[in-house]
């Protein structure tokens, strides 16, 4: 028989935070701005929705400061669906994160898509019961976020562009750096930690595992079923799709098609079928004409 002490449930442990992300693997997380969109996403087979006021493409267009969404709007989406609901806080804005936790969101995205609130520090994510996902462009950035308590990482890409090129760059960068660590001996790992500006213990763990100690998704520019399958073949364990769905001609159909292609990412026939007659994709932006100051991926440190 177990002791009474053992039977006291413990919430907010690293295992339940990271384990939650494990349950999302192989799935698609979709940006939604209304309860109706959330239902469309759920019906299409999304594993979670990201509740926000404006999709990244509109944040780009509107300019100005982008902040946490209205609690009423987030609660409306929580009420509308049974799948997990995520929401975004600004980088370093731990009070927005406290508010999101109090609303009962299932995951907080400390996101570069919103305007950063602190240009030096990210939020201390260990201080929360609600788990966090954070963006990264390289391994060092990913490990710094994990050191701060992130329970899930997404490669950043360039949100709101409908252009997958930056998502590919960042995921390849992270995977290549992990592969390089695998070849290092113990002596080299100390210098590697210094170069990566990440804690030695995490660097050592990644070298041993050959992967991050948390789930790795891809984000920022996925607009088609083939884009989603590409990111999966490159090693992403799932995908975030932001503007790509609800900025397209037929969101319900495109959403379902991206879900299919994410599960059967290695089967070109299924991806071909999923890609048929989807209507207009979002227009998209060429990232090489995007000024440095408008690159969200540069936010975060």
């Amino acid at each position: 028989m177990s002791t009474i002490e053992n039977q006291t449930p413990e919430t907010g442990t690293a295992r339940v935070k990271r384990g939650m992300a494990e349950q999302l693997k192989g799935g698609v997380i979709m940006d939604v701005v209304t309860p109706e969109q959330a239902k469309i996403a759920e019906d299409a087979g999304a594993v979670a929705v990201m509740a926000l006021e404006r999709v990244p493409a509109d944040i780009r267009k509107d300019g100005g400061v982008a902040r946490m969404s209205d609690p009423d709007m987030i609660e409306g989406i929580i009420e509308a669906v049974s799948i997990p609901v995520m929401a975004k806080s600004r980088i370093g804005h731990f009070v927005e994160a406290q508010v999101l936790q109090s609303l009962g969101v299932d995951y907080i995205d400390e996101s570069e898509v919103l305007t950063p609130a602190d240009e030096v520090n990210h939020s201390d994510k260990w201080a929360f019961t609600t788990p966090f996902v954070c963006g990264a462009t390289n391994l060092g950035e990913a490990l710094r976020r994990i050191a701060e308590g992130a329970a899930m990482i997404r490669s950043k890409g360039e949100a709101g562009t409908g252009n997958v090129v930056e998502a590919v760059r960042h995921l390849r960068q992270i995977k290549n750096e992990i592969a390089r660590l695998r070849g290092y001996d113990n002596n080299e790992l100390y210098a590697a930690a210094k170069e990566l500006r990440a804690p030695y213990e995490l660097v050592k763990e990644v070298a041993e595992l050959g992967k991050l100690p948390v789930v790795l998704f891809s984000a920022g520019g996925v607009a088609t079923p083939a884009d989603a399958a590409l990111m999966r073949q490159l090693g992403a364990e799932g995908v975030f799709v932001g503007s790509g769905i609800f900025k397209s001609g037929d969101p319900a159909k495109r959403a379902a098609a991206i879900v299919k292609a994410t599960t059967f990412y290695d089967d070109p026939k299924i991806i071909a079928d999923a890609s048929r007659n989807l209507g207009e994709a979002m227009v998209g932006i060429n990232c090489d004409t995007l000024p440095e100051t408008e690159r969200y991926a540069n936010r975060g440190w």
Partner: protein
Amino acid sequence: MTDAPVIGVLALQGDVREHLIALAAADAVARPVRRPEELAEVDGLVIPGGESTTISKLAVLFGVMEPLRARVHAGMPVYGTCAGMIMLADKILDPRSGQETVGGIDMIVRRNAFGRQNESFEAAVDVRGIDGHPVEGVFIRAPWVESVGAGAEVLAEHGGHIVAVRQGNALATSFHPELTGDHRVHSLFVDMVHANRATES
């Protein structure tokens, strides 16, 4: 090694990798299953944790649901964790519109019964049939079993709610042994697959 049973993990969505690792550690040959023809080749199947609505939709869409029901009905050993438990329930208390299950266990489940992610927790659980110390139960937006029929055996409870059930060759837990590194529940399931093969041959 020819004796090792082949056990599939339904790989439409969810924590497939962790189940593959746990099954291999419990001396089974583990492989992902996404298609009807892959299902036909396994001696038993694990339905992993994930989003039950997503898994259910994809199973119907890709023609796995009907063959899976047929095999479970015919007695193929099957083990479901969390979303997998929901898939094995004959009835869901609060299904989303059109959400189908495989069935196999005469029970009614309540989805996300323990709450949202902020209420997700770890607790020690005594599981009937698992010797030694209690199992580390990792409950993530977990379901519980509201009630079971006469044919289903309750294997564990937490806080007065049923969290593990077995009926014949079907096993289900609300929690995730695959996330703990303790493979005793998977060993129990591998033993069920061995026993089933012995009766079939």
